[in-house]
């Protein structure tokens, strides 16, 4: 009974189902935060959550838990028991980009707060139609 449960949990389909459900749930949380909050920092955090959800989604679906990391395969001879390295390289790049965007956004928010004392996009009024 317990053995069966463990094998079922260990099968790629189950793991991938967990990854898909979890990451889409995370994406939904991020999207909710993006729409529901007006604080600049909270919006940036929501964006970050959405990005992380996509990384988990991609990595979870593109790799098989029973295969090893690309560098630990059979020494580049048959490429049999290793995962596809492309998604991992892509995700690394995307993480770096996301980090850069986030730090830029936070530095904008800090500078904006220092200059105006505002930290909320609902208070922004410098732009727009003027009569």
């Amino acid at each position: 009974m317990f053995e069966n449960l463990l094998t079922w949990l260990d099968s790629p389909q189950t793991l991938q189902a967990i990854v898909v459900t979890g990451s889409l749930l995370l994406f939904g949380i991020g999207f909710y935060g993006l729409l529901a909050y007006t604080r600049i920092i909270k919006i940036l955090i929501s964006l970050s959550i959405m990005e992380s959800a996509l990384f988990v989604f991609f990595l979870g679906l593109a790799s098989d838990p029973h295969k090893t990391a690309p560098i630990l395969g059979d020494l580049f001879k048959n490429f049999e028991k290793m995962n596809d390295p492309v998604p991992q390289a892509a995700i690394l790049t995307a993480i770096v980009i996301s980090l850069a965007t986030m730090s830029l956004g936070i530095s904008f928010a800090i500078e904006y707060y220092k200059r105006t004392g505002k930290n909320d996009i609902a208070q922004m009024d410098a732009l727009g139609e003027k009569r």
Partner: protein
Amino acid sequence: MSPVYFIALPLFAAFGYRGVEALGRRAVAMALLMESAALLLLAASFVGGGRVVENIAIVQPLAISLVIDSASLFFVMLITLSMTLFSLHYLFRRAESAQKHEGRYFVFLNLLMAGTLGLVLSADIFNLYVFIEITGISAYVLTAFQKSEQALEGGIKYLIIGSVASLFVFFAIILIYLELGTFNLALIAKNFSSMPGPIIFVISLLGFIGLGIKAKLFPLNFWVPDIYEAAHPEIASLFSAIMASAYIFLFFHLFYLFGIGFREFVMTAGIVTMIVAELAALRQNDMKRIFAYSSIGQAGLVIAALALGNPHATTGAFFLLINNALAKLLLFIIVSVLFYRFGSTHIDTLKKVGSKVTVAALLMAFLTLLGMPPFGGFVGKFLVLEGFAEKGAYMAFGAILVAALIEAGYYFKMAGMLVGPNRSPETLPLSIGYRSLFLLIPGLFLLLGIAFFLFLPYFGESAATLSDAQGFVATLLGGVK
């Protein structure tokens, strides 16, 4: 020569900013001018060369490739030409109106150029994502560069909306990779229709939202006027001339390559974008906002014409793109000159313009944007209308004419302020360089309108190449199955 220089040279030059900055403001402008002029010449050397594929590192289909064909070459020349004209403005402007940190400014201008050129040239969908981000991040920084309240507000808004857009694009790219196991554009194009229907729909929807935000498509363009208002006018000139064109190319490059349906839908979106933007422009009092709405309107017309897919309309769209880029570059450069002199971008400032060259340049830019002969805009609009008439799309035909009438409303209002009564002209000292620049750019779109037969074969070929998905796939893959 290899197309890799289009991306490598700006990225490499960005590293040299310390050295250039130490030599002074003129050196920064000269470096930018030499660089963009060199790239323009390099682009000119590709004219008539067919499709050139540059594979970096390994062989197909794993290689990172750059493809330059007559469609992407058109956009490369548009970007480098705009950048050359922009750096002339940079060179001529007076010392007191300089930006605070010229060296950093130079870095982000270079990144913007590298990013947009990469968007146009790359044949790898993940690299496209990276270039979208490079373009985006440099655009956010350039928007907020002044660090004033307005600029920072614009920068934050742009960063949030831009990140959401690239998230959607990234989601679409992930789904494509999970389905097809490749990032190579040609392989994706070949197998795109073999995916299950719902997946195709989701990918198209995500891509449409992401790239629609970037290409300013209605109803995803609510952010544009704020950003154009927040940014310095000379930066807005680059956004309108370079970035908008690059994203329109990317949108339709992928649209044709993947053979996505929804043609009528995109066409209608373009027409609605145009009408709504022109109507909104009527109510504005700030020149930057008026020209921002006018840019959206022109983009809408171009998108509608490209979605129609008729050869005449597509060729006309190419005329309109280069015409709009040159005219908006000129208009925003003049706005930035007026802003330094009078400290305002309100349309009443136009009443104070006392320089004949500036008035003439403004009037010519208005006329070409309205599509009046003998300027380039006329040729573009005429061909687009011909295309719509041939396809029997009379609703769209009428809508374009109505939009032109609305457009005439606000451009004639501004022209009235330039030449009409109630003027109070004040002196506007202009250097000889600026005077020649204000004659050079109208000269270019006058040339486009009078000698259109010189450009017609090239633009026609570019238009045909843009929609030729099979040729792209065949050239990129070569012998690979």
